[in-house]
């Protein structure tokens, strides 16, 4: 038996091992096999440029529904937009209010901290603009409800943000203006807003506990103040002062902002950035794309055989090139801004929006900067719509026109850096690609979209040699 084991271990198994090596493949062998079977060794890339495409429609969507300002808050205006702030307070202080209600010298103020990390960012040069001086008109309106006990205060916290936002949108309260002279000399100092006498009077009615929902607008300023929100360490404070140095200092437990047009507009093709809920949907005519594909391949497009799914080729990359006219557009930070693209694609029979990937053309970026940015002194904006066109050609038989969506992203600090992300360089320095705060701009795409655009497709062609 031992002899048999020896035979197995030292003869049979090594023999199998050697055979395993003999029965191996090399590149030439696999190549000639694939070739023989009629299978390719790579896919042929072909490019197709479709020129002179005029959008069949361009539609902008702007949502002025309130949104959270717990982190960063904005107050003021930016070009054609106005930004209001809403503060939600809930507090109790029975001792204080017992004297405050009959105090004739009662006063109060609202204190904000500026968003220092924005204003003192090394990438920007705001320090030159100090001091900021202006006669600021603030418009206040509020809803005050009173109650008593901790239970009252706790019950306010039970109101969800979304239900709070939904009621802010339809606020019709009396508006009280205060005009004062604002003078900011340091980004560290508090910004103190006086509050109207009527608000002080109203607060005198509070016996024990209250909920104060306060709205502040600054429609007449041409500045946009960036402030710290309710959930930051530097949250705003509502300071109520009585005589005898008694005071009550309270911070809002949540804040919201509402950005809306100063004047109603129609048929706008303007984007504002700022992370606002807005988008521009551009529609390219189907027929133009299908005709170009038919001429290119000599096949029928759209494909209607069988279940009409066109798997004869695949879009590896698609780029739409829009000639830029930036004359009427304005920004504040003077940095290029990334254009974010998404396409409407089919997902299990439902149309859904898919964010497009961005593949970097390093040589071009080093020479001219990223082609998907505005305010970058480019005469052409190139947007990649690969997922969208891949899906569109795949299912063209039951599709209407091709649609993609654009909106504005973050300002870009390194427009010529192909990294397209933050990184640490060889010297150990952090290189930030995007600026971490939005710019609030006025970017009118209408003049650019009036000119015909170009669509360029990189196609993986599956057709064999005929």
């Amino acid at each position, binding site marked *: *038996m031992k002899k048999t*084991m020896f035979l*197995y*271990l030292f003869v049979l*198994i090594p023999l*199998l*091992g050697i*055979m*395993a090596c*003999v*029965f*191996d*493949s*090399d*590149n*030439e*062998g*696999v*190549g*000639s*096999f*694939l070739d*023989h*079977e*009629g*299978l*390719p*060794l*790579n*896919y*042929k*890339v*072909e*490019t197709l440029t479709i020129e002179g495409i005029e959008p069949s429609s361009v539609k902008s969507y702007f949502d002025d529904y309130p949104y959270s300002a717990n982190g960063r808050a904005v107050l003021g205006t930016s070009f054609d937009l106005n930004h209001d702030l809403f503060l939600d307070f809930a507090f109790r202080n029975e001792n204080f209010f017992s004297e405050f209600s009959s105090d004739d010298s009662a006063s109060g103020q609202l204190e904000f901290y500026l968003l220092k990390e924005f204003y003192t960012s090394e990438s920007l040069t705001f320090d030159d603009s100090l001091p900021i001086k202006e006669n600021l008109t603030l418009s206040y309106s509020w809803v005050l409800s009173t109650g008593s006990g901790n239970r009252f205060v706790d019950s306010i916290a039970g109101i969800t943000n979304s239900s709070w936002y939904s009621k802010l949108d339809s606020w019709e309260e009396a508006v009280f203006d205060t005009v004062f002279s604002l003078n900011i000399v340091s980004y560290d100092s508090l910004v103190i807003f006086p509050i109207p006498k009527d608000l002080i009077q109203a607060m005198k009615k509070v016996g024990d506990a209250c909920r104060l929902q306060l709205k502040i607008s600054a429609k007449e300023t041409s500045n946009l103040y960036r402030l710290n929100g309710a959930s930051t360490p530097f949250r705003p404070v509502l300071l109520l002062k009585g005589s005898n140095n008694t005071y009550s200092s309270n911070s809002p437990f949540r804040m919201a902002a509402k950005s809306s047009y100063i004047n109603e507009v129609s048929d706008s093709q303007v984007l504002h950035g700022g992370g606002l809920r807005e988008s521009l949907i551009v529609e390219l005519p189907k027929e133009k794309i299908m005709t170009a594909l038919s001429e290119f391949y000599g096949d029928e497009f759209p494909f209607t055989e*069988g*279940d009409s*799914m*066109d*798997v004869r*080729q*695949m879009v*590896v*990359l698609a*780029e739409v090139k829009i000639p830029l006219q930036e004359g009427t557009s304005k920004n504040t930070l003077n940095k290029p801004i990334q254009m974010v693209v998404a396409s409407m694609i*089919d997902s299990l029979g439902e149309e859904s929006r898919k964010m497009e990937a961005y*593949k970097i*053309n*390093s*040589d*071009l970026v080093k020479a001219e900067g990223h082609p998907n940015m505005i305010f970058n002194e480019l005469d052409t904006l190139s947007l990649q719509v690969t*997922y969208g066109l*891949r*899906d569109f050609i*795949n*299912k063209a038989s039951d599709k209407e026109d091709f649609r993609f969506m654009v909106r504005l992203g973050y300002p870009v600090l390194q427009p010529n850096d192909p990294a397209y992300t933050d990184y640490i360089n060889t010297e150990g320095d952090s290189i930030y690609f995007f600026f971490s705060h939005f710019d609030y701009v006025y970017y009118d795409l209408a003049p650019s979209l009036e000119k015909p655009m170009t669509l360029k497709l*990189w196609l*993986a062609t*599956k057709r*064999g*040699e005929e």
Partner: protein
Amino acid sequence: MKTLLFALGCLFTVSSYASSVMGLDALGAEDVSGASAAIAGSGYAGNAKASEEGVSMMNPARLAYNKNVSFSANLSYQMVSASVKNGSLGTQSITIPSFYLAFPMGQFGAFSLGLWQHYSSNIKLELSDSLNSQQATLEYQGSIFEFTPSYAIKLPFWHRLSVGGTAHFVMGNNKRLLTLGPDNSAVAEEDSWATNNSDVTDAVNGSWSILNHPAYYTLAAQYRGKTASIFFSYTTAYTLVNDMEYQLQMSQLDTLAPTKLSRQIDVPITLATGVSYRLPKRQFVMFDFMWKPWKNDIPNVAGSWDLPNETLVESEFLISVGYQRDGSTIFYDSFISRMTYRAGAWYKNGYLKDVSEVGGSIGLGFPLGKRGTTIDLAIQGGVRSSKSDAYFDETFIGVKIGLMGIGAWGNQRSGM
């Protein structure tokens, strides 16, 4: 013994895919005779040998002569080398092509359940030549499995004759993935950035079933003589349906919407017969013959690129001869004399047109324990040659290992 199994196990786990590179787009390679290691050892001959325990897919009637409850599982390892024009092409595969359970019920006949991988196309080939911008990975993973309940009974008035049948419920999946790198030779240099690192996969995923029917059937009759046994079997024709989804994809999550395709493969009837003749000293010679008159060419998996649309077929037959010396059943005999020895050879005209296969095998059965539990080892080798240019000739070496477990369940204690 344990060391040997362990070492073989280690060797098998490092190997990858494939059994033959012929007919991958049709049905793939056929594992005949229920893919049992025992019958593979005698060159696929021995379906008529009634004293053999276990299940024969060619001859379900043999089941009636089983004495013990048995379980068998088979493991197959194959290495194939195709003689391509340039370079070398070799593949390896490991599969568990079948397992069976058999329950003899005395005068009520015998019943068995099995799972048999009848056809398989498993291969993975990679080509990476960045100099010529050639990058391709071809992967086939396909199995036509059959779930096979069988029943056989000895005729009550004449125990030398038994009849049996098997229903073959067909199931399984198939997949072909061809992943390709870009060839930028036709685009301008400044445009080549767009497709760098963009691999495109041509993907087909399908499943198997039978048209308009749950199963196909084998019927057999067996005569068990004192020295000679013989069987005849007939298997019904059926139409295989392969429903497929075909698409191009960048990754599994980034695909085109697939187009749905279906192909039908007309599998003809099978006629089989075999003789087993007993010689002195537990020796047997065996002869088997199987015939399958293929008529209709087989549509290929989702015709694309320059693939031909069909795989041409021809009448399939298998002639096999085998020798077996059964091991002694006396536990106190030496291990060598308790071992079973097998040898055989076969000639097979495959279903692929102009392809024939000649092979030989040797087999050993190692007894484990008193009851008759056995490990069967078969080593097969041979050549598949093609008269036409459609296929490359192939050399193959295969190892099959089967475990046959015999249980005393349901048997009366005897000899005590």
